[in-house]
């Protein structure tokens, strides 16, 4: 059974104009436990709107969302416990931070989950040191840099130890080293702890690198759903959705045109290096 099953949801922001078109329309997809799903699409296509439905922050005007087979719109569905199991890091971390100090902000979710004060503080400190920012614990969140805010927001979700991580452009505003560390950490959460990851990104190389499933969103609709390589090799589809193919595919095509064929399923950075070694040496 998929962990999330999104069934034909539609949503529009303008609730008072019946003629307004839906911002997302007839969206369906499913996410299995342990999946590493990427949502891609150009700016304004509706990605953030879609993911903010998954933990019930927005309620779809039409359609249904099943979490472990149960409709989250059911009267007796426990939305609060869903929010503990499904942690969301917003696109704009400043929308997510509200406390006076970083540590208070990070421990908020743990306290709500029912942990004791000491335990919550301990977990918060753990999360902060995990992200290498324990030195910020007494700072005011609003005064931090963009990347620091993002880490604090992520730490606030980490303390709840959710089963599903929903990350809306987690790499935006991070320097390249931090970004790599960050993705490695998420990858570890996925591989070692079996956490399900749904992330939004504009960097398609990261999609090849990390995702095992891609959902392409275009103009509020799901354009295609499937295996990353198949989707990212389809330049007609990418062009239609206003996306540009990642470097890995460029390299693959370049080599193919020169008569060198590398394995399609081996387009991750390390794989490509190995493949190149194999075909060139």
């Amino acid at each position, binding site marked *: 059974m998929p962990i999330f099953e999104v069934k034909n949801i539609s949503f529009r922001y303008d609730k*008072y104009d019946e003629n307004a078109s839906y911002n997302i329309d007839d969206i369906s997809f499913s996410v299995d436990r342990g999946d590493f799903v990427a949502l891609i699409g150009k700016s304004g296509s509706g990605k953030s709107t879609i993911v903010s439905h998954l*933990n019930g922050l927005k309620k779809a005007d039409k359609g249904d969302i099943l979490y472990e087979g149960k409709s989250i719109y059911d009267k007796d569905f426990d939305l609060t416990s869903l*929010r503990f199991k499904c*942690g969301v890091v917003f696109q704009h971390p400043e929308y997510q931070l*509200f406390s006076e100090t970083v540590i208070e902000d990070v421990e*908020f979710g743990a306290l*709500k989950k029912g942990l004791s004060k000491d335990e919550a503080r301990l977990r918060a400190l753990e999360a902060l040191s995990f992200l290498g920012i324990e030195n910020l614990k007494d700072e005011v969140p609003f005064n931090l840099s963009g990347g620091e805010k993002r880490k604090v927001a992520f730490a606030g979700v980490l303390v709840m130890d959710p089963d599903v991580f929903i990350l809306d452009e987690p790499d935006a505003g991070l320097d390249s080293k931090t970004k790599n560390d960050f993705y490695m950490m998420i990858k570890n959460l996925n591989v070692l702890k079996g956490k399900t990851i749904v992330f939004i990104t504009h960097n398609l190389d990261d999609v090849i690198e990390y995702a095992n499933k891609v959902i392409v969103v275009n103009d509020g609709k799901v354009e295609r759903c499937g295996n990353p390589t198949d989707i990212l090799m389809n330049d007609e589809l990418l062009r239609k959705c206003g996306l540009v193919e990642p470097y890995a595919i460029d390299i693959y095509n370049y080599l193919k045109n020169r008569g060198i064929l590398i394995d399609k399923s081996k387009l991750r950075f390390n794989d490509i290096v190995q493949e190149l070694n194999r075909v060139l040496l």
Partner: protein
Amino acid sequence: MIRDITLGQYYNRESVIHFLDPRVKLVATLVFLMSLFISTNIFAYAFATLFLAMAIMLCKVPLSFILRGLKSLILLLLISVVFNLFLTPGETILSFGILHITREGLIIAIKMAIRLVYLVIGSSILTLTTTPSKLTDGLEKGLSFLKAFRVPVAEIALMMSIALRFIPILIEETEKIMNAQSSRGADFDKGSIVDKAKSLVPLLVPLFVSAFRRANDLAIAMEARCYSDSVSRTKLKPLAYKGIDYITYVILFLYIMLIIFTRYIKIDVGIM
């Protein structure tokens, strides 16, 4: 719930009312509010209803959107109705134990409710159809005769429009913080009214902090554009009356005359 406060919001539509000069709309709102308080009998209320209905129809803002503003008012409405209903002395028409509903109380309660509801609808039509900048312009120009008495009209107008503009910003901010907290397990819907009220407390500090930040940002932005109160600014679109504005003034005059006239009709219709 928080989203239900429509006061101070602008709703973009192409309608006659949006098109009117802001001074006319300010006067119209004032006239309408006045008319509510000099209305004494059912005829006056009927005319006021008609006037309001016309305005609602003409402004092309969906009725549901306008009525949404009333939801946040229900508690206030209920309190004032209940107090008037039970605490006005007079001829008793219904009794529940020690509580008596009097004829006079009933009349006052109904009038009060109508006045309150119309008042909110009337003033929200003004803000729904007028952008804050036009409102400021209207206020500034409409009150410019006060400059002769050394009243800082421009500054007052600016302050008022910023205050008005901050209502939706604060609402937006509240919603943002509620979203952030509920996505990490805060629950604003569960429990009794007391529980709900308690769950709002953790919102207050962040709300004020962010309001001050927004105010600070605004001040910096104004400074960066060299805003100064000592320079008299020119307007991109200077206000000028058009035909429709004069017509509206005439309609307003007729309307208030009509309402005043109804005070002299002495017919005992039902309880009114």
